């Protein structure tokens, strides 16, 4: 299997199973291109967009604005896309509706998709592998406190946990709590404090730099 290779450490695309998948993908793409149904450049553009443009930075900008502007936060919680467009993030009708859920000192929210891997892609990009993995999908609804602890987030026993299973076309993003000590931090400086994991709800937003 993969460990038969002696060159460097095995990269996923170098093992035979992955090579077979690469060939199947190429065969399918070649056929669709030959039939004139799709252009290779269109696929290139989608790949480039996911690799370079769409990522958790979009979600982080939304959160930093919500922390800095109470009226924006109210609009965000009431109609997320309406508010998000104010930041110049473009969205098409094909985008799934977004609902933003707010963490408070008493309530912690976390997002999962038990049936597949639904994720607020327009704001966070593509989900990490652990989010798509069977253990996360299976366990988060059943033992959220234990899973969060395993992922490094210890919450007080008194905190209420709310798990959002994205079972239809609504996509959920968490509005994390503003980190203590960040009261005088500017909106721009708040952005890097918001990690992807905080937007999923498996981490807190980071502490401001000294």
């Amino acid at each position, binding site marked *: 299997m993969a460990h038969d290779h002696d060159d460097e450490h095995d*990269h996923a*695309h170098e093992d035979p199973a*992955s090579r077979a998948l690469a060939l*199947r*993908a*190429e065969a*399918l*793409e070649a056929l669709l291109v030959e*039939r004139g*149904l*799709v252009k290779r450049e*269109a*696929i*290139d553009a*989608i*790949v480039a967009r*996911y*690799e370079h443009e769409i990522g958790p930075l979009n979600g982080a900008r939304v959160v930093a604005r919500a922390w800095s502007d109470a009226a924006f936060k109210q609009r965000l919680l009431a109609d997320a896309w309406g508010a998000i467009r104010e930041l110049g993030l473009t969205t*098409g*009708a*094909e985008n*799934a*509706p977004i*609902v933003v859920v707010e963490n408070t000192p008493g309530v912690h929210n976390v997002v999962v998709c*038990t*049936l*597949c*891997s639904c994720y607020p892609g327009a704001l966070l*990009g*593509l989900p*990490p*592998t652990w989010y*798509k*993995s*069977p*253990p996360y*999908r*299976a366990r988060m*609804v*059943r033992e*959220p*406190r*234990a*899973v969060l602890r*395993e*992922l490094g987030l210890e919450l007080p*026993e*008194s*905190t*209420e*946990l*709310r*798990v*959002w*299973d*994205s*079972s*239809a*076309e*609504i996509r959920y993003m968490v509005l994390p709590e503003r980190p203590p000590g960040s009261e005088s931090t500017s909106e721009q400086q708040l952005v890097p404090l918001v990690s992807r994991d905080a937007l999923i709800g498996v981490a807190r937003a980071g502490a401001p730099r000294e």
Partner: protein
Amino acid sequence: MTDVHDLGGRLGLGRIEREAREPVFHAPWEGRVCGLVNCAIGFGWIPIDVFRCGIERMDPERYLRASYYERWLTSLERVLAEAGVLARGYRPPPRTAPAGFERAASAPPRFRVGDAVRTTPRASGRHTRLPGYAGEKRGVVAHARRAFVFPDTNAHGVGEQPQHLYTVRFAARELWGERAEPRASVCVDLFEPYLEESTAEDGCDGA
């Protein structure tokens, strides 16, 4: 179709492994498959519900072993062939279908925020978005979400048949019994056909 993908609450799947500095795609072919799936759905060759259903029809052992993009590729090959997209002379559908998933429903919503509801049993062997763990459980409507394409019909080629959608909140104890973690609840987005009124006898403690 098995229900292997219906993973919520399943035991024995092990720890959650996290990869440091994970790339967006682990190999170039994953990006190509991601792009092809975006085109297949975006160009209207197949509805997303048909694509999801294709994943769920995988051999269950293969499903659990496969990487995410292997599942995508396997479904895409299969559903494109079944839909005739790979046949010579295929013409893509005109772009007249409404975008997105929201639609007008044919009837007013049956439930309101605060209503106590009970879910139907999960349908087995076909596409549905009622997770098994949330089947035959009591919850409370936390949000009414307008109407959307109904995946249960759309995945099987019998139309969009839009249905009202609700976010239903279930207490952890209702889902998992006495050993559930305290002060936890699960919110699940459920289509109206999955819901019945909960009788007073059912009782419901909300959170």
